[in-house]
């Protein structure tokens, strides 16, 4: 069991080094791709919204970078499976679907990590972070990354052609980053409709981060459990429905 786990982690690290570190070394501008949109939005919020609105923008930027650098696994995994046909080599090997997907997920995160660092730095600039706040932010970020990656890998396994997914990635990014209260306060939604916002896992993450920097008075235990439950649900659905072998 321990041996299997160790080999799984090593496999994931090898894939992450191969696809994440080497990609960013040779194509460093891919980092900019993830930063550009949230930074642009933040710029306009800063121009027209003032300091308090800017902090909301920083929270939104952090969550949206995590979303975009997680959901991208959808197109990349489909490309590797359908165009390069290299996924078949992994299927016909001792490497498991979990270690393969985890390796790709870390590789994608490596592209987004500079943006995550930038936005956490900005958060700390606007609101000094207590150790507990850092833990809550780390918890929210990790579960957002895990759950959205699971969703992306699940969707990728159903694609017949990477073109199928070109449409979904931007739609999902908007549905997860811009439609729910990620860049704006949850309280702007009428209280009777707020439950709709919690259909998106990013609402939980944004609420937790906002609470950590004093922008919200949410129930941290409740929202934390909600995010954990949502993430587990997405991971379970992904594990059950993802097509590793062909049918």
């Amino acid at each position: 069991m321990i041996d299997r786990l160790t080999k799984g982690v090593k496999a994931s690290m090898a894939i992450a080094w191969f696809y994440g570190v080497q990609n960013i070394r040779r194509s460093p501008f891919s980092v900019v791709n993830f930063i550009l949109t949230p930074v642009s939005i933040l710029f306009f919020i800063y121009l027209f919204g003032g300091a308090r609105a800017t902090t909301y923008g920083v929270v939104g930027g952090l969550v949206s970078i995590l979303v975009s650098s997680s959901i991208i696994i959808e197109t990349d995994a489909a490309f590797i499976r359908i165009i390069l046909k290299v996924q078949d080599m992994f299927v016909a090997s001792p490497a498991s679907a979990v270690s393969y997907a985890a390796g790709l997920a870390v590789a994608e995160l490596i592209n987004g990590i500079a943006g995550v660092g930038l936005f956490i730095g900005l958060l700390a600039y606007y609101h000094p972070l207590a150790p507990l706040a850092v833990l809550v932010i780390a918890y929210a970020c990790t579960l957002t990354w895990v759950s959205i990656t699971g969703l992306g890998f699940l969707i990728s396994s159903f694609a017949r052609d990477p073109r199928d997914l070109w449409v979904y990635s931007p739609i999902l990014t908007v549905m997860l980053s811009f439609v729910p209260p990620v860049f704006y306060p949850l309280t702007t939604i009428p209280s009777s409709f707020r439950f709709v916002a919690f259909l998106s896992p990013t609402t939980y993450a944004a609420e937790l981060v906002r609470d950590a920097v004093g922008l919200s008075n949410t129930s941290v235990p409740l929202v934390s459990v909600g995010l954990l439950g949502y993430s587990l649900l997405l991971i379970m659905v992904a594990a059950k429905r993802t097509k590793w072998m062909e049918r």
Partner: protein
Amino acid sequence: MRIALAEAIVAENLVKIYPNNKKALNSFSLTVPRGAVYSLLGKNGAGKTTFTKIIATILRPTSGEASVLGFDLKKQSHEIRRRVSIVPQESRPFSLQTPYEHILMFLIARGWSLSDARKRSREVLERLELTEYQNQICSTLSGGLKQRVVIAMASAAEPDLLLLDEPTIGLDPVARLMIWDFIRELVEQGTTIFLTTHYMDEAENLSDRVTIMDRGMKVLEGTPSELKRHLGETTSVTVTGRIGAEELAGYGKYYQNGSASRVFTSESRARELADYCVSKQLAVTLRPVTLEDLFIYLLGEAND
């Protein structure tokens, strides 16, 4: 539990029906001895890749039984995966990574230690004459070199069974010969090779046994020599230019496609046909029959 040791693959009555109701394998059975090069030939869409993917545990059969290296295909796929490796049809390496990185990553993903993986990567790169390109990103390599990178990845793992699905497509003749030598070397080291190819000379030169399949079913199986004997003739005559079917019919079995005709006949009748063609100013070549002739005869709807 391992149930067979002398055979690398035992497949019995495999059926594969895809979700779109296309029947790719129709009660297909095959036995591949260990330590052999076994080739599966057939037209496009015959079911070769489907069978290869099933044996590699990439695809589930609809029905039927199979064991790979003594392990049950359905119940012991994890054991099979530790011992097989595949070069998928039309597979390509990643653009921004080097050949060395490909092999190293794949070996570690398969459970090798870093130091062993490093050593083995260098060995395989050298054997496949890729050392010169080992630190070049793959987008800058030619198509043939890219194909060699994928072959290097799959074979580096030292599998007991290596499945090669049309591995030499896009390679120049010199590179193909090098891959053939490499395959022979792997067999000498104890690897069983299962090959699908459209190059009949490749199958003929490399294989211990060959199966020809069509529409998901086995048409013929045997050694290359046995299969050629099945044709019942010794000489193949290729005629280029306009010649009537009635003119060819008297000489033996023939196949016509546009202005190219091929006749399978005895050596003496072949010479007579050659003389006749020369007298009519038609280009003609004579040679002993090959697997390609048999393939055309069986699957190209030759006329008797």
